[in-house]
């Protein structure tokens, strides 16, 4: 067992993947000598050289497009988009190309590509270093969306994403990179995209979250237990697409109440899909409205700290939402 931060676990997985499989290479902006702007690839350039750990020209569509080509040629590219906010120029390569390749060739060509994307609000990040993009991509068939919230999951899910023959968007909460710590076993099997994690078992209410919000949800649920005697089940979805529908439905069939928390803005956020699923397939189980706690419908977290705190849901906000729904 080792105690790691989220980013250390990601770096560890990248190092292991490069060591294990000669087809794996990393590319992105400043990921070589600089070790990435967040240091996710620190030390890897020195260890594996420029052939395996390759700084890219400044072109997100190029990073993804070249990654697609290399994946078609049966390499295992792990591409880094420096901030989720910068992924939009690559939208067409991801949505129109990588995600559709398998279907459009009737299974002829596959794209085993991992795109690592630091996402979400971080103090001082402003409108273009804070965006959450999961809902934009979760709509797209053919693309897997993974969002780990613990160091152990980050490491094993990154290995699983690299093994997956499909394109995987691997979203990393950058605010959680050094804030989230946890135990990581010495040896751990890869975890393929798919299953949710019951972070905390409970009977009074189901709380669905991912990434940083899953981390905060656990904090809030512990406080609800301590301060209110409420037994909240926290379901860390980990993979948004394909969604582990069974885990969502099983949890709500037990608790009868559902709260979804995300730092993406509310309208057409992924919480809407959870709510729709529950209304559609667990209507009889519900003892209250499906509630969403989300960021307001503004472009992203503002730069000013007070406005930032207003924007981003925190453990206090989650606790308040738990209390409201529990009282329904």
């Amino acid at each position, binding site marked *: 067992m080792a105690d790691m931060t989220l980013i250390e676990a990601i770096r560890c997985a990248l190092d292991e993947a490069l060591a294990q499989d000669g087809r794996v*290479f990393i590319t992105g902006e400043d990921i070589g000598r600089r070790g990435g702007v967040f240091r996710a690839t620190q030390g890897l350039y020195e260890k594996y050289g420029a052939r395996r750990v390759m700084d890219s020209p400044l072109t997100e569509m190029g990073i993804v497009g070249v990654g697609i*080509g290399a994946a*078609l040629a049966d390499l295992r590219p792990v591409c880094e988009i420096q901030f989720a906010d910068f992924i939009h120029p690559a939208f067409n390569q991801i949505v129109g190309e990588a995600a559709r390749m398998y279907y459009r060739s009737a299974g002829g060509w596959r794209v085993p590509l991992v795109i690592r994307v630091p996402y979400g609000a971080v103090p001082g990040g402003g409108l273009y270093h804070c965006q959450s993009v999961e809902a934009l991509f979760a709509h797209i068939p053919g693309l897997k969306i993974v969002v780990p919230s613990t160091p152990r999951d980050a490491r094993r899910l990154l290995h699983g994403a690299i093994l997956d023959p499909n394109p995987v968007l691997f979203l990393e909460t950058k605010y959680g990179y050094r804030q989230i710590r946890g135990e990581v076993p010495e040896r751990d099997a890869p975890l393929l995209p798919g299953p949710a994690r019951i972070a905390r078992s409970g009977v009074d209410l189901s709380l669905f979250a991912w990434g940083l919000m899953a981390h905060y949800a656990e904090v809030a649920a512990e406080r609800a237990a301590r301060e209110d005697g409420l037994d909240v089940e926290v379901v860390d979805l980990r993979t948004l697409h394909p969604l582990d529908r069974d885990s969502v439905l099983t949890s709500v069939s037990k608790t009868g109440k559902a709260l979804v928390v995300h730092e993406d803005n509310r309208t057409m956020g992924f919480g809407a899909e959870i709510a729709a699923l529950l209304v559609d397939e667990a209507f009889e189980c519900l003892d209250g409205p499906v509630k969403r706690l989300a960021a307001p419908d503004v472009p992203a977290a503002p730069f000013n700290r007070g406005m930032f705190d207003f924007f981003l849901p925190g453990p206090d906000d989650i606790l308040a939402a738990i209390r409201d729904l529990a009282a329904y």
Partner: protein
Amino acid sequence: MPGEAVTRPSQVLSDDTLLEMYRLMLLSRRLDERAWALHRQGRVQFHVSAMGHEATQVGAAFAINRGVDYVVPYYRDLAMAIALGCSALDFMLGLFARRDDPWSAGRQMPCHFSDRDRHIISGSSTVATQVPQAAGLAFAVRYRQRAGLVDPQDETQPRLALTSLGEGSTNQGEWHEGMNWAGVQCLPLVCLVENNRYAISVPQTEQMAIPSVATRAAGYGAQGESVDGNDVLAVYDAMHAAVQRAYRGEGPSLVEAHTYRLTPHTSDDDDRSYRSREEVAAAGEVEPLLRYRSVLLERGLLTPKMVDDLEAQARARVDEAQRAAEAAPEPAPQEADSPVLAPLPEGLA
């Protein structure tokens, strides 16, 4: 040309090869014409034509290691696909959107080629998206060579990526970003620009401030050359130089082949609003199939009888492919549900 020094690579092509190039151009042309007729009869939904581009495409295909080197074509490349080994039946199955359409099993519009065995990458209809991907394939070629996984001289392995697109598509960011990547990393990429003077309806003069797309190559450290795209041997020669340069590790090239689209953009287009009939008729006078036939007749490689025989053979192949495709089963409608995700490898699921 006895006694003359060999100055053009096409001069050493065998008679069989020269005739094969003709046969393939002819087959593509007749398939194309049949597709238009079938569309006018209401028997197929859509066609996108390669007519007029056959010399460019066949000349280019013959310059690479066909079936081995990666090819990332665009939807106008019927003659290229045929030259790479795709069959008349393959085309017809796609045209009729049949279950056994090998390129997309009825999911894509016709002429969206895809053939894993022949290293032809599936394309979309969104222009220039294939260029960074082609750079990625070229990157993979070089990656494997540098890792010592393959011998750079091994002709059974891909040694370059060829991509193609129209001149209008070189205005897309993806073209520029892909070319820049290939240039800065000195990748074995050959970009064939099939310049037919129009991006659907908009002439080149309204698309870019330069008369020749080839000059764009300089901005990316690539070799740029323009060539008469209606002269199959001239295209072969220009492409041969670009391909050998890629094989030698000297980086990307751009070959601009000047040609003309003899038909509207697609079966849904009407070109009368943007091209005069005189202009189209004039292009027909210098179109590549007749022109190459004249060359072969002049050289004595073809006789009038052979021309007729080859014509009959091509038509028979088109007839047979059409019959087989029309008789082939439709996909079950519910097959539309898959395959969205590739299955996990054995032992992982």
